[in-house]
């Protein structure tokens, strides 16, 4: 191998360049369900080239260790790919992120030990400059917090840790101060005012910070957190690249960091949240507004448009339950079109019209008639309620109180005794909604956390259009 490096000058750099191109093309392909498989394959090829490139770097100390690492890692990776079910994808990503972060952190620590702590007496080699110290500090911090943060996220997703948000007063202030303290440590290390031993203090603080910043976040918001952690692990990898002067790590890390950040931004937008809200770790449920006893027992599960489309695709009978959210989003035309697409596939589609759906009597009728929904498809509550039990998917479109099971059971609730649509009797319920916010009556809806219910967050019109697009592929 070293021979090859001599024969082909700069072959490592060429391989890295090819790897970087493959990463970028791969990520581009991942943005659409059609090309995602190819994208994944391209990125994997890129990774292979990057590994080959690194192996002929010429600075290899012991091949045995590399072999052990590759075999162990390869076997674990293969087992995860084969045996972990697709539904456990978020957990898997959490683990991979966390391990990536841990790797970056460990590399950082090693480099610090090698160049700063164990530095030969009297050596004045400028090899590890102040810049390197700073980047190594960032690398250790990001790597460590990504590791523990991801492990907590994994625990929450897996149910090992309560997925309810754990909060205490002044949490955000503590977190921000903690973060500032870590940054101060890095500055101190760069200027040389602090003993290099403080690198370990930094690592310890970052490990704790990872836990502190994920604990207050509720289970339903975990996807956003995972995307954020993904970004952090990418940044950690990029920092590693700077420390090791490894270009492909910088490129891959930057790609990973920016795509993670973009993904979390998109998810925030879909959930009607700002990024600051997420960055401060206060994403666990509506902040402030929740009073005691009003909280939901359990966590809503959120699904993607593609998953929702699959469920609709597999259904034989679908009932659409429109509410004021559909009217406010102006989604009635899109919903009609969605129903048409489903009908073309031989799926039976009906609309369940609750007498108080919307903000005026007949609100749904007026809008759906405007969208040319046949009157025969609109079914009154009393007639359609028995049919839910025989329905595969109840698609709740911006409706809330009119399908809240609290009306049946929760005595003292403002809607107690109101007849509701029995959507929870359907095999599966998909709720399209902008956020978890309550409806007109101002009370939370247990339906959203029912085991057979999945939340599809987003603007009603956009979501419906995406569903149509996915189903028409």
């Amino acid at each position, binding site marked *: 191998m070293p021979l090859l490096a001599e024969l082909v000058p700069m072959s490592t750099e060429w391989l890295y360049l090819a790897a970087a191109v493959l990463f970028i093309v791969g990520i581009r392909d991942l943005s659409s369900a059609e090309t995602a498989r190819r994208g994944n394959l391209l990125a994997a090829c890129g990774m292979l080239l990057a590994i080959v490139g690194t192996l002929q770097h010429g600075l290899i100390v012991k091949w045995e260790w590399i072999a052990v690492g590759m075999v162990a890692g390869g076997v674990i990776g293969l087992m995860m790919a084969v045996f972990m079910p697709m539904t456990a994808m978020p957990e898997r990503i959490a683990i991979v992120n966390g391990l990536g972060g841990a790797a970056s952190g460990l590399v950082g620590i090693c480099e610090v030990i090698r160049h700063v702590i164990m530095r030969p007496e009297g050596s004045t080699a400028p090899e590890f400059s102040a810049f390197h110290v700073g980047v190594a500090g960032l690398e250790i911090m990001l790597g460590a917090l990504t590791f523990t943060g991801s492990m907590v996220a994994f625990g929450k997703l897996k149910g090992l840790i309560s997925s309810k948000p754990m909060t205490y007063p002044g949490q955000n202030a503590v977190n921000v101060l903690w973060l500032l303290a870590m940054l101060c440590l890095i500055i101190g290390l760069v200027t040389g005012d602090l003993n290099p031993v403080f690198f370990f203090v930094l690592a310890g603080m970052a490990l704790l910070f990872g836990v502190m910043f994920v604990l207050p976040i509720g289970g339903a918001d975990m996807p956003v957190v995972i995307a954020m952690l993904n970004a952090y692990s990418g940044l950690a990898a990029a920092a590693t690249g700077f420390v090791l002067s490894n270009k492909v790590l910088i490129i891959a890390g930057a790609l990973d960091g920016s795509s993670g950040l973009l993904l979390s931004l998109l998810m925030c937008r879909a959930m009607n949240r700002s990024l600051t809200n997420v960055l401060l770790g206060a994403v666990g449920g509506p902040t402030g507004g929740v009073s005691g006893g009003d909280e939901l027992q359990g966590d809503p599960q959120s699904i993607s448009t593609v998953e929702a489309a699959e469920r609709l695709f597999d259904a034989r009978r679908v009932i659409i339950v429109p509410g*004021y959210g559909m*009217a*406010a989003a*102006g989604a009635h035309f899109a919903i009609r079109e969605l129903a048409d697409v489903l009908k073309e596939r031989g799926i039976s589609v009906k609309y369940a019209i609750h*007498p*108080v759906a*919307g*903000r*005026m*009597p*007949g*609100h749904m009728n*007026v*809008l759906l*008639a*405007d969208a040319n929904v046949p009157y025969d498809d609109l079914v009154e509550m009393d007639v359609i309620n028995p049919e839910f039990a025989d329905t595969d998917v109840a698609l709740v479109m911006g409706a809330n*109180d*009119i399908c809240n099971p609290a*009306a049946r059971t929760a005595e003292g609730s*403002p*809607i*107690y*005794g*109101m*007849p509701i649509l029995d959507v929870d009797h359907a095999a599966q319920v998909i709720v399209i909604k902008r956020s978890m916010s309550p409806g*007109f*009556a101002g009370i939370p809806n247990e339906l959203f956390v029912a085991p057979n219910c999945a939340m599809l967050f987003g603007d009603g019109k956009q979501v419906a259009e995406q569903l149509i697009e996915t189903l028409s592929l």
Partner: protein
Amino acid sequence: MKVVVPRELAAGETRVAATPRTVKRMDRAGLEVHVESGAGEASGITDEAFSEAGATIVGDRAGLFAGSEIILCVKPPDPETVTQIPSGAVLIAVLDPLIEHEVVSQLATRGVSAFSLDMVPRIARAQSMDVLSSMSTLTGYQAVLLASMALPGIMPYLTTAAGTLHPAKVLVLGAGVAGLQAIATARRLGALVWGYDIRPVVKEQVESLGAEFLELIDTSDAAEDAGGYAREQSEDQAAQQRRAMTAHLAEMDAVITTALIPGRPAPILLTTEMVEAMKPGSVIVDLAAERGGNCELTRPGGNFTSDGGVTILGPLDLHCSVPAHASLMYANNVANFLLHVCRDGRIDVESDDEVVRGTLVTSGGRVVHERVLEVLGATES
């Protein structure tokens, strides 16, 4: 329990408090329904239809009320009818108790437990009993048809070989139930529609029906009270609003006003001056005519054409012009209410239920409704 449904005696009243369908529901619930002969005539419901549904048809009024326990009416009973109601009976009707003090005190004196369905709280589960909401649905729809008939043109935008017809511009003031229904109906007739309300929260609701929300002045959340109704505005705000409104009015072909404040005269939204600014041939339909009207020139129950050629319609009880649907909705509201409050064959007037507390006006010889007592106290002192 004996439930009686008398014929409505008030002039122009076409509704009836029960339909064959609600008779059946009450019958199933173990109530014995007696309907006065001819009660459903104006709504197109024959005595036979009622008796087929299980009601007993009674010809003489005194016999009808004798031994009755629950009386279902539309309008408040006249003084003579009140004397026929047995003491201790339950009356369900629309009493308008914040305004009609006389009938309230008569019913109290008579010892009648009177529920007034126009006082149903605006909460989700009581929607099925909310008569104001059902009647407003009909009046909102009808108001647009009235306006359309009174307009010198038609409403939609048509480009034809004989020239282009520009769409009518319709402004709906007050986006409550009637206002929203008017907006939806005008849109369906092809007009360009604007909506306005002092409660900024309804902007989204107006827009959800495809209309535009007219932004006049800075609005605040304070205009909606806890019950979901509009509150009276301060003088200053109203003046500002009028100035801004005048400019918009000059553009409109039809204006439908629906602003009502419970227990108060209707607020004036359109002054004489503002009407003068409107185009000749334009039409105002004032749905608040019963409470004096939202327009200064409104003649309740009549039509009026201003010097500037603006037609102002002040219809009363517009829902009575569609008696079949008005009766259907009203009777359903009544039956929903009755079956809600009547548990195990009796009506508990002491119940803590929000719906009972909100609607029970008189009981045990006294006026018991808090807001009605407040109004009564204010007028006495």
